[in-house]
């Protein structure tokens, strides 16, 4: 069955934060506190339990804004709207002991609030730092991929509100293709550092929130090689088994030695 995805094209983002507000309005999430961060115009600071879409502001003295002010050391301002990646192999889902985190038909990774017991295993298991526990409430929260809207045939609130079509929503494979075409188009316009962020060949095995960025994904807080913690499980269990074996052997040896 076809699954849906976001393609967030940061070269089209104007930093208006309509996605953040539309998300909070639709999902009825509370504000994040009224703290002035001093970090450019970014005061919600990160994706978390009460911010499911978050616009990063990358203020950089070197050229980065699209087509911007070429050839000079002028200010540049990059914007990109971050969101849960809805991984194919999702660390949070794999770690959840209660079965609260499930995969929806569109490919969404969904935390069922009525099942979550607040153990926070998902929080440490997310390779992107998306899931966060609400300490007052005791449970973990993150983007639902607007599963309720999608079931009704509507686009997620953030994509719907975006005025510049920086957040595109649609079929995953079609958006993959679109992202590649867009990179070529930017290339033709003389922008050579545009990349698609789609970590297919890592252990997350692909995501449902692709990004089109300029330059190093790390400047937008996106890890170049995200890994699901469970990928280390085989290694972990093997080491544990060997250790157990060695200890058992040592114990046996000790007893055997005593009999003599």
């Amino acid at each position, binding site marked *: 069955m076809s699954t849906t995805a976001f393609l967030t094209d940061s070269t*089209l983002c*104007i*930093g*208006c*934060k*309509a996605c*953040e*507000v539309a998300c*909070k*309005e639709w999902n009825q999430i*509370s*504000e*994040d*506190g*009224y*703290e*002035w961060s*001093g970090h*450019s*115009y970014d*005061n*919600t600071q990160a994706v978390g339990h009460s911010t499911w879409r978050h616009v990063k502001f990358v*203020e950089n*003295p070197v050229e980065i*804004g*699209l*087509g*911007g*002010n*070429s050839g000079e050391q*002028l*200010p*540049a*301002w*990059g*914007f990109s709207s971050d969101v849960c990646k809805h991984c194919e192999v999702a660390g949070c889902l794999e770690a959840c002991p209660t079965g609260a985190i499930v995969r929806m038909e569109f490919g969404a990774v969904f935390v069922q609030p009525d099942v979550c017991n607040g153990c926070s295993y998902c929080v440490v298991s997310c390779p992107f730092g998306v899931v966060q526990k609400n300490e007052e409430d005791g449970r973990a929260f993150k983007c639902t991929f607007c599963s309720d809207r999608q079931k009704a045939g509507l686009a997620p609130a953030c994509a719907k509100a975006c*005025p*510049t*079509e920086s957040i595109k929503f649609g079929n995953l494979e079609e958006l993959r293709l679109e992202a590649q075409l867009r990179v070529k188009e930017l290339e033709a316009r003389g922008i050579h550092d545009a990349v698609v962020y789609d970590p297919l060949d890592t252990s997350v095995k692909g995501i449902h929130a692709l990004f089109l960025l300029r330059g190093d994904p790390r400047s937008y807080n996106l890890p170049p090689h995200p890994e699901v913690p469970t990928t280390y499980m085989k290694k972990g269990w093997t080491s544990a088994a060997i250790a157990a074996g060695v200890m058992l052997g040592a114990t046996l040896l000790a007893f055997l030695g005593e009999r003599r």
Partner: protein
Amino acid sequence: MAENHPVGFQWVMEARHKGAKVIHVDPRYTRTSAMADYWLPLRAGTDIIFLGALINYTLTHDRYFREYVVHYTNAPIILREDFRDTEDLGGIFSGWDKEKQAYSPETWLYEGAPSADSPSGEKAGHSQAGGGHGKDRGGEAGRLYKYNDDPTLQNPRCVFQVLKSHFARYTPELVERACGIPKEKFLQVADVFISASGPEKTGAICYAVGWTQHSKGPQIIRAAAILQLLLGNIGRPGGGILALRGHATIQGSTDIPTLYDILPGYLPMPFFGSDSQKLESYIKKHGSETGWWANFDRYIISLLKAWYGDAATQSNDFCFNYLPRVTGDHSHFGYWLDMADGKMEGLFVMGQNPGVGAPNAKLQRTALSKLKWLVVRDFVETETASFWKDSPEVQRGELNPKNIATEIFFLPASGHAEKDGSYTNTQRLVQFHEKAVDALGDNRSETWFVYHLGRRLKAKAAKEPTPRNAALNALTWDYNTHGKHGEPVVDEIDGEINGYRVENRTLVSGYRDLKNNGSTACGCWIYSGMMPAPDENKARKREPHGLYGHGWGYAWPSDRRILYNRASARPDGKPWSERKKLVWWDEEKKEWTGHDIPDFTKKKPPDHKPDKDARGDDALAGDKPFIMHPDGTGWIWVPSGLKDGPLPTHYEPLESISSNPLYPEVPVNPVAKKMERPDNPYAFEGGDARFPYILSTYRLTEHHTGGGMTRYLSHLAELQPELFAEISPELAAELDIQHGEYITISSARSAIEARALITARIKPLLVEGRNVHQVCVPYQFGYKGLVTGSVPNDLLAISEEPNVRIMETKALVCNVKRGRLPQGKAGLEVWKEEMRRPA
């Protein structure tokens, strides 16, 4: 534009996608700059130098669109011999009356155009009472259809040549010296912009209040108009000067105005003078013999019929004398200063928060304490409503609640989702919006409030049929109501605005149906045709088709999407190019046709030559697209209607760090009003040592105007939760300011505190050989709501640009210091200390 009009900015993004180049000129590097191909920071207040240099460049390099300029503009028209330019007189135009501090505009007229003095003998164009929103419909000061011209543009007294010499000193070198834009950068951008013109291409200029809020705001926009006319960028697709308005329906609130000097449809409010005592003399004064405004009488008489119904008859001048008269400056600042002087009794404040949103907000708040009563209608109890108990003046002991006798009525207002209504956007597009939810609690719509207030006043007046109440008793006020609160039916209001035949109340199909004999009524002639049948309100349409969105809403007038679009065709009626075709003459059908509704008389052929004594629209030739002007041309030169000159000229801001590089003797716009008084003081002219930095205020995407609609909403308040000031790393280093710490900013009016946002997006500029620092502050904070801060508008001065009486907010002077501003009286002392420093 990306900052304050993110939704409209999607079209800029789309144009860019198709290869358009985006140039952004702004002292700050904003979210718009981030999307632009070129960003040019300039010293705030030097826009006319920048635009004048573009005009000069276009002329000296022969890059203007010659055929367009010769046929469609007044460039070939010859001016009077006694006209003298600012270049001749060191910064002022001919006609300056030093005593009155005003111009006599006669010498600005075309040669051969007789002055149009009023029947009562008052000299045309001399009245100082009004604002400029509705002035000079069709050319009050002259009969401008009479002129001589030189199509070769060679006559030294033709507009083209005068323009050339007027701007000759606006060079790239001057731009570098005065604006702080390097010469090469200017030349590069000039070439890019000017290349977007000619038969195959067009370029647009978008501006917002950054241009209007100057002591010469309208002249800045005039400079843009001159440039666009020279490049043939008006009336053509992709061209134009696009005013990005500051609120959702500001366009609508000037069309059907909340301004003191105009009536609906830009008809001037009558003055107190003798030439406005009779309807006939008022029409003679403001109407025009030629051009579209020859229909002036139809529009004012139909308006009077809509307002006064059966009471309005030919024999009583259609109740013309029930209209109030303009007796002086009744603009916001005019009456607010009257209020400060105790000359006003009461005030309604609806959808406005002058306690933080207006310049010299301290004076604004203090003046409220002189009222007997104040009505505030808003979503929340704004700073304007609560000034008496929690304003900084109360904290500092300047106001004492015990001594304030103002009785305040706070009435809750409905949000836009709680009421039917319409928005008119910057494209003149009227879009209806339906009520989505019932209003909460006692919230009521504006239509409800105004209708029921009027109904009660009328009921009261009906019991006392005195002459004083005659206007109120005659007023038609008969809308049907519905729902449990008696909400007036909005479609009935729209029907009245559209206009109807008095005889049988059938709706008219457009303003061409309106008559001057009282047989038609129309609430606003430019909107006529929006609702031609009771079940057809075109503002509700949601089926767009074609390139220009016809079928979505209704663009006044007559659903034309691009004004003056006759100019999109050559003088012979054929499109300038296939690529840019919009409206053209169909030779077979003998009529104008195209992708847009032609803004021209449909059957008037391109080779139409008017008879000698033709009047009205017939008097304009078939190649004169600018039908609202009596001569049918686009005005590079404004012969009548402006108070501060026929051409834009650079003057420094009223408060400036610099002297005028062009006219040292005339530092500032000589006609602008400083309204200087003890509670509205200024820094010294030509550079005041106490205030070495430029202060510019602006708006953030995250907040709306004075913040009454956003600082109280958690999801918006958290996005920009505290007042900050943007300063450059260079200034921060000079003053030893750390990022994020508090700073105190002071002006000649007051002092505020803000967090320092040190950013490379603000650059010091090299002006006249020295580093100039600009301090940029969003003005949207106040002391109420979920997030609070000092009121930056306390720093600004009240001032009046001469034509539309707008204040200067984009270029003033200030000082910056490390550290917080103490609360209470101590804060006042800090500011006084600043003022005592040597100037």
